[in-house]
């Protein structure tokens, strides 16, 4: 006898019924833009391996109006990902020091501070 697990029917737009479901879906949807940007970076490495001419055309493409619009949209979703990711860190990785729980605000704050530092390093490394 073959296995026939019961699959409950899910409405495609269930997440529109409540604001908190919409914000949940907004957070989850960031992954699509993270993935698309990884694809853009993959293309960049391929072009880099093909030599100067290919690289220059890649830089021209990401600097073109469609390239900028695409990346600004990705930037918006990337920031939503960062903020939502950092805000759940006290729940995802609760910390205790000498038996005392570290206040959630301290854990979140430390992540924001690190975010600022890492962003600065990226900007300096890329040569502002």
């Amino acid at each position: 006898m073959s296995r026939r697990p019961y699959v409950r029917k899910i409405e495609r737009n269930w997440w529109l019924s409540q604001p908190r479901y919409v914000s949940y879906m907004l957070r989850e949807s960031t992954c699509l833009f993270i993935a698309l940007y990884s694809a853009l970076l993959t293309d960049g490495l391929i072009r880099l391996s093909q030599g100067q001419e290919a690289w220059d055309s890649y830089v021209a493409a990401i600097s073109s109006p469609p390239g900028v619009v695409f990346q600004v949209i990705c930037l918006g979703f990337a920031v939503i990902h960062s903020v939502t990711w950092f805000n759940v860190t006290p729940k995802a990785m609760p910390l205790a020091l000498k038996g005392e729980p570290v206040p959630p605000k301290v854990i979140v704050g430390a992540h924001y501070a690190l975010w600022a530092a890492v962003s600065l390093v990226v900007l300096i490394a890329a040569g502002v």
Partner: protein
Amino acid sequence: MAKSSKPILWLPFAAGGMAAAMITPALLLVTGLLVPLGLMHLPYDKIAGFAHNPIGKLILLGILALPALHAAHRMRTTAHDLGLGAGFGVKLVCYGSAWLMIILSVVALLRI
């Protein structure tokens, strides 16, 4: 002991989610705004030189592979949330696209 593939999928999700949260906005700021506005430049010699160095190769692979793996895992769970199920096809599209990017990047980096 119960066997689960969850830890194997969770580690890249957590590491990738953190990498994407920490690094991706700054990278997008560079490639999507500062370079197009002419405030920054990505000259071939400099970037190719960075990619020539083994540590540079690892950094370049990491900033694309970790977020890609994170996104793959989240896409899979979101597909499930949208009623697309959790079958082989969904896994293939989500994890397969991430691994395709990683393989293409490794090949490209090894040729630099």
